[in-house]
């Protein structure tokens, strides 16, 4: 392993491109600000938030948490596989990760469907403004993460990555982990914590 062939091996952290990390930090800053705003608003309207939180489907939330964690694990397996030059298996793991994203969106679709059917929207009350803004904004990130994984999968499938060169895959994987991380904070904050 010398620096000529493995420039990134000299700096294993952060994995992936520095540019994606700037983007990830900006996104985390946005979510962090949203979470702080949520926390303060919740303190001011404790009764409303407590009551409204009970109307959420926490089983669906739990299921989605499992799906995203599984997705993150799949992506990690994909990176490990490409490092061992197992191109086909890496591509399959990526597909599985995309699948977990699809699952997440299906669950979310039914969850939103039930809420909209009950006549709830962004302007129902403060809690639902937060709930819908936060979760929809996050769901859009899931979609973006899936689009990125799709491009990575496509390139992997065609042999674009190898044990020597998987910088792009690590870049995409980092983004997907961020999407997962945000949900792992969001889920207890919005669904569970009372």
């Amino acid at each position, binding site marked *: 392993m010398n620096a000529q062939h493995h420039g990134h091996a000299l700096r294993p952290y952060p994995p992936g491109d520095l540019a994606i990390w700037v*983007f990830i930090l*900006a996104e985390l*800053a946005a979510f962090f600000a*949203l979470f702080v*705003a949520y926390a303060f608003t919740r303190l001011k309207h404790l009764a409303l938030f407590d009551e409204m939180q009970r109307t959420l489907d926490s089983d669906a939330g739990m299921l989605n948490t499992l799906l995203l964690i599984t997705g993150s694990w799949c992506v990690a397996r994909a990176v490990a596989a490409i490092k061992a030059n197992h191109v086909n298996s890496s591509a399959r793991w990526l597909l599985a990760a995309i699948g977990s994203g699809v699952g997440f969106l299906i669950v979310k679709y039914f969850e939103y469907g039930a809420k909209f059917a009950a006549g709830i929207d*962004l*302007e129902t009350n403060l809690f639902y403004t*937060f709930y819908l*803004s936060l979760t929809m904004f996050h769901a859009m990130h899931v979609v973006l993460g899936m689009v990125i994984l799709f491009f990575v999968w496509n390139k992997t499938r065609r042999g674009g990555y190898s044990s020597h060169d998987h910088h792009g895959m690590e870049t995409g994987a980092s983004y997907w982990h961020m999407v997962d991380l945000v949900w792992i904070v969001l889920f207890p904050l919005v669904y569970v914590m009372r």
Partner: protein
Amino acid sequence: MQYKSQAVAKPYFIAAIALFVAQILFGLIMGLQYVMGDFLFPEIPFNVARMVHTNALIVWLLMGFMGAAYYLVPEESETELFSPKLAIALFWIFLVAAGLTVVGYLTVPYATLAKVTGNDLLPTMGREFLEQPLITKLGIVVVALAFLFNITMTVLKGRKTAINTVLLIGLWGLAIMFLFSFVNPHNVVRDKFYWWWVVHLWVEGVWELILGSILAFVLIKVTGVDREVIEKWLYVIITLTLVTGILGTGHHYFWIGTPEYWQLIGSIFSALEPIPFFAMTLFAFNMVNKRRRDHPNKAATLWCLGTGVMAFLGAGVWGFLHTLAPVNYYTHGTQITAAHGHMAFYGAYVMVNLAIISYAMPLMRGRAANSNKAQVAEMWGFWLMTVAIVFITLFLTAAGILQVWLQRISDNPLPFMVAQDQVSLFYWMREWSGVVFLIGLIVYIWSFFIPGEQKAAA
């Protein structure tokens, strides 16, 4: 100067500075009207002076952007401009149209101007910053399209770099967003909603792309740092700009009848808007620290660093001060907005224009840099104008805080005009700072006429 056709930038830069002078003179008139309400009344009422002040600003910044594009694109694309003749023709059309519009503002009542220029066909006039008559607006569209055609053709036939690509995206975005100036629904809420697509998505969106690419170009030239490094930074900065700036539009949708969730979205994303400006400051200083050559044009480097710092302070910090909805509830539509506007426009767009002018003008006049004496004078201009704008901003902020307190927060809120009388001391101090700014501008212009020993063009 590497390509002959770059010289078409020169008249653009000269006209830009001339309009800059007009902008400042009318600014001083308005400043005086704040404390001497009958000054020039009814010959030049405040609203007319303000139109000239803001419209001259917009037009001269656009002139500067166009000049910058004409200078920068041939050099980046490594080819002559597609059509220098078109560029010169557009210059005169744009200048004459701008001149006639100002004459219209100053000589006939606005309602008459609206009538004779066909506002009845498609009412678009009488909205802040978009006061131009319909024919002027159409003229802007025609000039912008022909200009974009010229620039795009040049880029297409030459080398594509991050700098000219980002500049092109910014300029196209500028033209496309301007089309919303023709959207004027009867419904006031929708009118205001789409009005911001021009105003906000210009200054906190696509204009920042133009700013970034001009700054990157000048920094490559004066520091000699690798293009590769500078272009990466450029992409990161403009990504942060649009990621925060597009949804940041929401900070204008708090109190105009739009749904209340905008208070959340607007607060969050506009609170992040200082990040790209901070990155720009770091970028400018980093590149200058890593410089591989000492360019003889010290003044241009100073303008670049100034852009980084003042854009961050004016757009970033002063924007953040009043962008959170609970704060903005009290500060919306007060002198605090005016304070932010002054420093942000100067720090971001005035300074980046003066940076490219400072870099390019000596080259177009056949020398690598101006004489030492001329540069010293230019730097005096820099410091006088910059310090003056800082004080203008501070005095307007003080006036704004007092205004908010007296008119909005105290137990017995005072009527608007009574509160205005209470803060007039700050308006006087703002006006005197404005005089210093004008002196700085005169010194700056004088620096162009200082000859002396000159180094031959590199």
